[in-house]
């Protein structure tokens, strides 16, 4: 199956001595010589699923052999260039650890194990359990935790079944605070892809956002454009990130003090009247309240909290204002940090509002999508209970289902939920401090189904594991996102399906059929849905199978007319510098700075993030990416290393404030980290033995996050309040 021959270095060193290498292939030309005369490759369209940015790509097949994947040249996400992970997509297809058969948990002689079963048995088992749950507790007792573009199939199934308890980690573990904060300021969240007009910006402000390591394709490309255009880059990060290395101003902020910095910036802009008074009058409410509130938060005050000198705070604020509206205040993406994250996002949004960058060239552009009609289907049954019933009392302003609330409601014999479907998300590593709860939930639930492509940690909790085929082997819902240039992209099968794995749409439809929900799945093949939708917008499946991506002209302007009123969807129609809605719900109407827990003596901030070579916890077993980065490292400042007598490249274990000990992890001693912090890349330290490459490699940040700082407004799981110290490995 494997296209590449695997190299065993040790074997070579030994064998080449006297045996001589294999005689085979001696007369063969070199690969480049073969390529010189190779005929053209066949090209099939795909949409990358190595992360959720969903770049349109092209799979090249040569002589029947998968060769490579490149970006679709017309795609605004990729512009013909996939990122490091997307380029390695074939590794996900070839991964010999892939799930290729349905598995059913059985109890045999007191010990549990997975049996390989037929699809019929697996689906029949699930349908039986789901019907029992529906009969005893109502269909609302099903919760579905999903992620990614393929999630749509299971969202649909869940709604057809009669439950609205659907949630994805993209909210409470990722963008929730940002979108909530912007919603209460601008009346809408930030789009994905983020509508940051970096290619036209004169100033780009990154607060945490570590573009370069965070490799969201078009974000990185437009960031590079900004660098090329000599825009002033201001990077706020306790670590000398790649983006900090590109910045004119690197503000190595004390972790957790960003709100202080944001308030001080706002203070400077108001104190020095660096705003456009007409714009403020026309488009904002609460300016006077803000001005009164902000007065004490001077740069001098902020210096004490953040460690950033008043001078630098003033200088950077002036540059932002001078460049406005061509200033991108990046809204961030993974924003669940310290529990006051919605308020931090509010502070960001207020700054953006004051600078007048909403809808402006070089600021935030106005994204647009192709209006793709829904395939006509009967209305979903109306659930008698909703996720809101268990959520709003805890997190009053949660705009959508909160994964952690749902999970908490799966524990115990009288739990709200009795069944769970998990699709394309690896909850034990994704949700901080969730393993214990997951274990209890798995015991309490009548059914836990996991749809995955590989034997991830999550599959270990499942009653039934359903093997989905990789994104290169399946159709998924059309990509039609709000962005700069509206377009539609098609993910179509490019390669033969491996083993007994199946596309998500097939799995959902088969379950629907067994649950008597055929009327919600009136197609034989999902292509009928895609084709119907495409025909509504003047295309067709046949056309898209050759095009892969179809651009559509914009119907609305990319930028708003300067000087015209914004007409936002907030209650006031204006930028709500002061949020009455937050005040009404009992929260601070203006963002408040709170000092977070200090690190205990001998402990260090556990800082984490991305590496360009990997996505979350999904790519560590990819043989292509493994070769670029086989393990994560823990970055330690030289002073810290000296203090603990830790050698570069030795392996240590990390111990957190609650005594949790990590797997061993290799040390990188570097100046690029603050002396009070350590840093590691999220997604390593796999404990699932079926991932033979990734298993036991590096350390898992989420396991060390036993202190979760919940955002009281929307339920986000703040992950940054954890501290670690070192345990040197016994040899």
């Amino acid at each position, binding site marked *: *199956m*494997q296209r590449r*021959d*695997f*190299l*065993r*270095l*040790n074997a*070579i*060193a030994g064998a*080449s*001595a*006297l045996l*001589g*290498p294999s*005689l085979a292939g*001696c007369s063969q030309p070199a690969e480049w010589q073969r390529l010189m005369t190779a005929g053209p490759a066949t090209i099939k369209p795909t949409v990358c699923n190595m992360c959720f940015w969903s770049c349109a790509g092209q799979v090249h097949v040569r002589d029947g052999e998968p060769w490579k994947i490149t970006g679709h040249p017309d795609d605004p996400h990729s512009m013909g260039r996939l990122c490091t992970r997307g380029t390695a997509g074939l590794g996900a297809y070839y991964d*010999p*650890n*892939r*799930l*290729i*058969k349905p*598995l059913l948990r059985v109890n045999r002689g007191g010990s549990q*194990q*997975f*049996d*390989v079963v037929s699809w019929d048995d697996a689906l029949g088992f699930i349908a039986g359990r789901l019907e029992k749950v529906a009969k005893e507790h109502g269909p609302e007792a099903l919760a579905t935790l999903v992620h990614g573009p393929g999630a749509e199939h299971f969202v649909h199934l869940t709604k057809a079944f009669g439950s609205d308890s659907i949630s994805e980690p993209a909210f409470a573990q990722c963008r929730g605070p940002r979108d909530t904060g912007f919603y209460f300021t601008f009346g809408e969240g930030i789009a994905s892809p983020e509508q940051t007009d970096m290619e036209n910006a004169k100033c780009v402000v990154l607060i945490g956002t570590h573009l370069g390591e965070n490799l969201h394709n078009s974000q990185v490309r437009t960031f590079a454009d900004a660098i090329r255009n000599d825009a002033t880059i201001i990077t706020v990060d306790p670590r000398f990130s790649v983006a900090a290395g590109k910045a004119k101003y690197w503000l190595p902020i004390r972790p957790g003090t960003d709100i202080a910095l944001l308030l001080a910036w706002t203070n400077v802009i108001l104190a020095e009247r660096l705003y456009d008074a007409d714009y403020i009058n026309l488009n904002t409410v609460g300016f006077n309240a803000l001005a009164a509130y902000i007065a004490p938060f001077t740069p001098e005050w902020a210096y004490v909290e953040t460690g950033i000198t008043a001078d630098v705070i003033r200088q950077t604020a002036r540059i932002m204002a001078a460049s406005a509206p061509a200033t991108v205040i990046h809204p961030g993406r993974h924003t669940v940090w310290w529990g006051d994250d919605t308020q931090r996002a509010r502070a960001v949004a207020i700054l953006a509002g004051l600078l007048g960058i909403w809808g402006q060239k070089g600021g935030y552009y106005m994204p647009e999508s192709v209006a793709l009609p829904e395939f006509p289907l009967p209305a979903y049954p109306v659930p008698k209970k909703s996720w809101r019933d268990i959520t709003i009392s805890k997190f009053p302003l949660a705009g959508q289902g909160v994964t952690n609330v749902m999970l908490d409601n799966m524990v115990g014999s009288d739990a709200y939920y009795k069944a769970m479907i998990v699709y394309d998300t690896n909850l034990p590593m994704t949700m901080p401090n969730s393993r214990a709860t997951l274990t209890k939930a798995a015991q309490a639930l009548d059914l836990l189904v996991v749809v995955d492509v590989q*034997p991830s940690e999550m599959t270990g909790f499942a009653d039934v594991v359903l093997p989905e085929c990789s994104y290169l082997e399946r159709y998924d819902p059309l990509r039609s996102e709000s962005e700069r240039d509206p377009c539609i992209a098609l993910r179509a099968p490019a390669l033969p399906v491996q*083993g007994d794995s199946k596309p998500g749409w097939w799995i959902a439809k088969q379950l629907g059929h067994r649950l008597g929900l055929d009327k919600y799945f009136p197609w034989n093949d999902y292509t009928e849905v895609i084709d119907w939708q495409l025909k509504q917008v003047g295309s067709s499946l046949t056309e898209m199978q050759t095009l892969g991506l179809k651009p559509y002209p914009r119907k609305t302007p990319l930028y708003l007319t300067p000087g015209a009123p914004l007409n936002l969807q907030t209650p006031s129609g204006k930028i709500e510098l002061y949020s009455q809605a937050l005040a009404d719900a009992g929260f601070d109407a203006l963002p408040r700075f709170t000092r977070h827990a200090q690190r205990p003596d001998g402990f260090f901030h556990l800082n984490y993030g991305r590496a360009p070579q990997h996505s979350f916890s999904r790519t560590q077993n990819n*043989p292509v990416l*493994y*070769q*670029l*980065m*086989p*393990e994560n*490292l823990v970055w330690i400042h*030289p002073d810290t290393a000296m203090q603990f007598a830790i050698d570069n*490249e030795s392996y240590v274990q990390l111990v957190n404030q609650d005594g949790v000990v990590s797997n061993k992890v*290799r040390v*990188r001693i*570097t*100046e690029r980290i603050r002396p009070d912090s350590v840093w590691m890349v999220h997604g390593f330290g796999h404990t699932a*033995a*079926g991932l*033979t*490459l990734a298993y036991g*490699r590096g350390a898992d940040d989420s396991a060390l996050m036993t202190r979760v700082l919940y955002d009281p407004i929307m339920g986000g799981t703040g992950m940054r309040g954890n501290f670690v110290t070192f345990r040197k490995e016994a040899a």
Partner: protein
Amino acid sequence: MHEEVLASVMANARVVPQLAIWGWQIAIYLFLGGFTGGIMVFSGWALITGRDEQTPFAVNRAPLVGFIALSVGMTALFSDLERPLHVWRFYSILHVTSPMSWGAWILLLVFPAIIVLTLAGLPLGFPALTRWLLNLPVVGKPLVQPVFKLCFFLRRPAAALSIGLGIALCIYTGILLSSFNSRPFWHSALLGPLFLVSGLSTGAAMMILGAGTAHERHLFGRIDLGLILAELTLLGLLLIDMLNGNAMQQGAVAYLLGGDGAMLFWTGFVGFGLGLPLLLEAAMWRRSFMVVASFASVLVLVGGFLLRDIVVTAGQQTSWTQLHNQFNPDLISNLRNDGEDPSSRF
């Protein structure tokens, strides 16, 4: 502070030591090449100067030893080729800029010369073997006999040629390495002379070991004493040359003088390979003792190999590029083999 690491993992030779360019096979080949060259020089010299009586080993027997040594050396070289079946490609072209190419062609000339000397010496040197060859069925009388005769007839011209080819062979092994500008430690004009002297010295040592007469042993003992002295001088000059060279050359010398290679260099090569035999040979200036002389010769041979091994290794320790993996490159060997059945894991 200056931190330079690879952001990707590199499993190339410079970063992963087990992929080093040349290992012991090349050291063996260089050693045996020089050794054979030394034998050819001294056998040729003995023959031309008519020392058949005083140095019977050098004249009659040593060429066979050289022939075998060179064959073993060639086998080592061959075994180091990544594509041994393509060995004939060496002889499809003489690439004038490539010492490797020159070497291949020199070997092609060396073999006939040493075979002539070997066969010419065989009847007197190894009578039993000669008889056996002559009595071989079918080929014995009609083929072997005339060949012996021919070789004996050609032995003096072949001897003259051998001196030249022997020197070429010794020097070539040094020139091959010193032509590599890319490996600073090898890039010294002194490497050729050093390897020449070392080759001659090991050749002389072989003569002592196999000496047929006390005179032969004593003669080559004195010769070797001079050669060892010359070798020490050249070595000293080489080190001085390197210490005054660029940073990379200094680094390579540091590797020998005080680094990981110091033990082998000082104790192995300088101490046992040069110093001790030098003392022993000097002590035997007036009279040679078989056991002591043989012991000294064995040390010289070991020293000869160590020199090649040390130089081959040290040259590969340094380079213009300094690549350093931050991730553990050993993990790359974890890549799995094809065709595992995922379902078998459950």
